[in-house]
């Protein structure tokens, strides 16, 4: 009864963005700017309204709802189901993604108004949202991969939106190559998972492809057959690491991050979309979705947690010295997503998703207001040439300040709660033993750095002296750009409310506990460990403390002693240059991977492809066929007597052969 109500709302909330993008893709060129924008916004916003309805319907129910639409592929021995796995996690993300995407699309109408090919832009944005929703709603590993790859494709197209610029093409290509590598890892991991005994244990074809089948099996086994499950733990370690590599590629975690800061020519709304709700969020969603598997891979969890914490810290460090606004925010995203991965790595999945939600709002506000600044300053993004915009862009300034505060952990704002939750999980959950101290402390060290670079960004843009560039009259943008910034700023201020202290109104708890807790409880039972009894409130003062350090330093330096950074640059030249060069990952990869690969490939091309295959096999076959044809054509000369002769030869031959057989 319940799911009959939801089947079509869910289907339409998924399909609406697709319909929008199809309309824009097919007929968008004929539409005016206004029509294009309204098609995109109405479809995504319609999807948001439907998802609100779904979320309200879902309030108070714990069990996942499986909506089946038959089979996607049906061959003997393999049935790939087509359906939706609707639980708290997917419902929550469905709402957040469509809401933030609607805001960003509204912003784009103002931002992209003078740009050409806006139908392509809006179509791609809508399509990107569609694939994200497909990923969120998938109920099995195959349809999950469809959404996953769709996100890769749309992100590639959005990064390369201005494809006439060779730098843009390079950065799009960089994204695609990195994703191809990490997706391969993910694919191998998922194949291992699908073919593992826990998935195949199920009788019936393909039943093991759905999450539900695999996870229920896992939970059951953790109680009924502990030795068997224990023998599978090494397999789960491998799967978890491979999935982490896959997710880290999409989420731009360290060593696979190089695509994210280099999207200089990508339209700002597209950057906002992929850094807040689609591309980068997809990896975190994947880790959260597959956390029941992760919980049975403690070593992998420890590796993930430590690497992510380091990633968060180092990325925040890189953001310290950059001067391009977009680059700072990109490194900030890498750092924040590192914290989310830390949450997933220690088992605090609900906190990670909470941070994903708050970060989505905060980061979209930051990027969009940076877009407003860039728009007002006619394309200037270098903070060294900005400053003193406080009086010129007052509304943007307030919104930006709110988002900066929320990002860096200002008490009672959105980021504060979610970060505290993550560290609460890190220090209390028992899965990764003593490593939690390392991961937790390194992660906590990222908070003051975050506060520092966030406030630095704010001070360098809005405070200080105003350098008026020639011919620029900065002013507040239109309402269509201002309103989304304000709404997201307001949400970043009050966003913490979704983790309201009273359990009845705690959205995160209501939606995520039924998804996260049962596997967690069974895993704790399996490992025989107990949770430490720290309260969540214990970590909030610590967060406030570390935030205050970063804030205080930034304030002192950038408001009182603006010359200090220059001195830092002179005294710590090597460190500064290393951070300024963004860790030189690309150079390292170039030496150890790209050059040898290029050498091997060019050898293969020259010797094997051109020499052997083209000249030898392909052309040789063609030539020999032609020679054969010329020879055969000699037989046909137009004389009837010859034709009869061939007939006679054939008959004689057949009779001769037949007599030999006797």
């Amino acid at each position: 009864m319940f799911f009959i109500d939801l089947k079509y709302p869910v289907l339409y909330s998924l399909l609406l963005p697709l319909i929008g993008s199809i309309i824009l893709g097919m007929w968008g060129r004929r539409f005016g700017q206004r029509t294009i924008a309204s098609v995109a916004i109405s479809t995504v916003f319609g999807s948001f309204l439907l998802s609100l309805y779904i979320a309200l319907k879902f309030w108070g129910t714990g069990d996942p709802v499986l909506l089946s639409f038959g089979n996607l592929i049906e061959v003997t021995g393999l049935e790939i189901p087509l359906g939706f796995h609707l639980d708290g996690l997917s419902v929550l993300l469905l709402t957040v993604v469509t809401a933030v995407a609607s805001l960003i699309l509204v912003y784009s109408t103002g931002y992209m108004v003078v740009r050409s090919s806006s139908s392509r832009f809006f179509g791609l944005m809508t399509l990107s949202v569609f694939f994200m929703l497909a990923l969120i709603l998938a109920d099995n590993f195959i349809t999950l991969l469809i959404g996953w790859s769709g996100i890769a494709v749309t992100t590639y197209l959005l990064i390369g939106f201005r494809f006439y610029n060779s730098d843009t093409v390079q950065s799009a290509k960089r994204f695609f190559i990195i994703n191809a590598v990490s997706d391969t890892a993910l694919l191998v991991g998922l194949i291992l998972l699908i073919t593992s005994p826990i998935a195949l244990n199920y009788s019936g074809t393909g039943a093991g492809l759905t999450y539900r089948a695999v996870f229920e099996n896992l939970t059951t086994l953790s109680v009924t057959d502990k030795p068997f499950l224990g023998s599978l733990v090494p397999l789960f370690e491998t799967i978890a690491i491979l999935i982490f590599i896959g997710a880290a590629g999409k989420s731009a975690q360290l060593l696979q991050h190089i695509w994210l800061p280099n999207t200089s020519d990508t339209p700002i709304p597209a950057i906002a979309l992929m850094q807040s709700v689609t591309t980068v969020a997809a990896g975190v969603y994947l880790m959260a979705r597959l956390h029941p598997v992760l919980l049975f891979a403690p070593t992998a969890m420890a590796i993930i947690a430590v690497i992510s914490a380091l990633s968060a810290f180092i990325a925040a460090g890189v953001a310290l010295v950059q001067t391009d606004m977009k680059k700072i925010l990109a490194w900030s995203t890498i750092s924040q997503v590192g914290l989310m991965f830390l949450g997933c790595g220690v088992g605090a999945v609900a906190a990670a998703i909470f941070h994903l939600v708050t970060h989505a709002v905060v980061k979209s506000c930051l990027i969009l207001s940076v877009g407003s600044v860039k728009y007002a300053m006619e394309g200037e993004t270098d903070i060294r040439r900005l400053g003193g915009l406080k009086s010129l862009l007052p509304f943007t300034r307030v919104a930006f300040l709110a988002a900066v505060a929320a990002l860096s952990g200002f008490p009672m704002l959105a980021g504060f709660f979610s970060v505290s939750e993550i560290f609460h999980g890190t220090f209390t959950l028992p899965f990764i033993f003593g490593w939690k101290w390392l991961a937790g402390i390194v992660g906590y060290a990222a908070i003051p750095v975050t506060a520092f670079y966030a406030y630095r960004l704010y001070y360098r843009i809005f405070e200080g002296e105003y350098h008026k560039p020639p011919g620029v009259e900065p002013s507040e943008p239109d309402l269509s750009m201002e309103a989304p910034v304000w709404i997201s700023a307001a949400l970043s201020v009050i966003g913490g409310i979704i983790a309201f202290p009273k359990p009845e109104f705690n959205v995160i708890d209501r939606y995520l506990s039924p998804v996260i807790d049962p596997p967690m409880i069974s895993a704790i039972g399996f490992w025989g460990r107990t949770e430490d009894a720290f309260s969540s409130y214990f970590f909030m003062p610590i967060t406030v403390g570390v935030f205050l350090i970063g804030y205080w330093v930034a304030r002192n330096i950038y408001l009182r002693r603006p010359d200090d950074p220059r001195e830092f640059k002179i005294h710590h030249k090597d460190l500064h240059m290393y951070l300024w060069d963004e860790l030189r990952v690309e150079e390292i990869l170039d030496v150890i991977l790209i050059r040898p690969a290029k050498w091997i490939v060019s050898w293969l091309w020259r010797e094997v492809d051109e020499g052997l295959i083209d000249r030898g096999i392909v052309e040789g076959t063609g030539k020999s066929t032609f020679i054969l044809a010329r020879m055969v054509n000699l037989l046909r000369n137009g004389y009837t007597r010859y034709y009869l002769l061939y007939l006679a030869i054939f008959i004689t031959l057949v009779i001769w052969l037949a007599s030999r057989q006797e």
Partner: protein
Amino acid sequence: MENGPEQDRKELRLYEAGNWFPPLMAGILVVTGLLVYLNYEFIVHHFYLPFISTPLEVFASTYRAYFLLLPEMLDLAGGILILLMDMIRPNKNRLRAPLTAQVTLILSYFPVIFTMYLTTRYFNAALGQYWGGLETIDPFSLFLKSIVLLTVNYVVVIAMRSKELPEKFSGEFYAFLMFAVVAVECVVSSSDILAIFLLTEFVAITSYILVGWLKNRPTSTEAALKYFLLGSMSSAFMVFGFAIMYGLSGTTNLYEMKVALHEVRMQDPSMVPVMLLSTLFFMVGIGFKLAIAPFHMYLPDVFEGAPTAIATFLSVTPKLATTAVFIRVFLLGLSTVADLWVPMMLICAVLSMTIGNLFAIRQTNMKRFLAFSSITHMGYMLLGLCAAGVIAKTNSNAAIQSLGYFGMLHYMVIYAIMNTGIFLIVSVVEHHSGGSHLDHFKGLVHRAPPSAYTMLVCLLSLAGIPPLAGFMAKFFVMWPLFEPNVELYPLAIIAILNMVVSAYIYLRIIKAMFLDKPMVEERFYPDTTYRYAMIPPFAFLALYLFGGYLIRWAYAYASSSYFLTINIYFGSSGPTGGL
């Protein structure tokens, strides 16, 4: 051609007409697709039967034997009528004769389709053996008859607009054509070697006359003479083979022969070489009719010399009849001695595929090219027969229900439609550019886009490019080779290699049509008749995408076990009704 204002206006009108051609085609595609989707039986029941059922049902129940021969009788009457018209007013029949032929052909559709409908509805109503077992009316023969009639419609369309055929006594041409059609229709339902021999000879002799129709063209006469000489030679072989078969089995009925040959073989194994000889001779005779290698040498000469309409006719209609004979004789009469003919059939299939392709590579004359292409396709078609034959080795009854049998039939139907489509365009180009050399096809897309696109679809389909019908045809003829009890993998590999070569030869034509510069830039506009005639092949080949409706229906109908049940229920004697 003078370029007065009259001419300009006409061209303008035709140009405008050309503009609505693509939308019209698309519309027809959609409507036909919807009809197919909505349910064939519903349409027949509500739009066809109310108009036709009562009188036909009364006639059918009263004179069953005559009713089943009604299509043949109608066509025969049409032919005689055309002859009479020609006697009365010899010079006025340029259009009347083909129209009469067309009307007769369309009229003769109704009994065929009505009987098909009856047999799908009321399983074995009105079917059986007639005239002492000479003719067997079964779903198989009705199905082929409907395709034969369709192709002859096209032949008439092509002949009607042809500049080649002389104005005077043009009725005679269509009369002969109609008589040939009558014979073909009878061949597809023959189940007796006597009938088969007489009727295939009937078809052959009419074809000799039609090939040599252009008395002023030396190649035509030469082609007719060659065709006649080689054809009579092969007929001699065939009748010799039949004589031995009769001598061995003591019967001319194929249903009886099947049992008799088996008994003879069991009783006297020393008869096996004689059986082999009879099979071989029959194969030579009938292989010549189907033009499979190595009996194919006459075909390119004949296609080149004959009028285009007759080349179309020869490439399709008698081949459908001959396929029926192949199926009836090999899978029914000789199915108990399948081990004797399967090796020969394998050799012929391989030779046909390979030699046809190798000859076609260097052809620049479209008609000769199509001749070699048809040789290749007959080779592919034989793959199905080989597979069915391998099954017949172990179970002679299963051959007729096997996938190989179905694949063969399916292949022939699609081949027939593709080939008529191509010949239609060849005749259009010949009509407007004055020849059928490859050079005349260069840049066709700039000169007559709808024709070029129709040709493109047909050629790609012949090459077996996936979404089109030709791919499905090749798929279903290849599939039986991989069946667990057949396993003719080497044959499949040879066939696939040949498909690669044939892709080249068809793409060569497509390249000429789409990439090369035309010799003359001037656009031309095919006649309305041609334009309408282009729609069905195009529609069919594209519509084939719609859920394989034809596959399901043809499989259910043509290979319905009724072909077999006659054998089981009526034994060797068979029911004799009517006359």
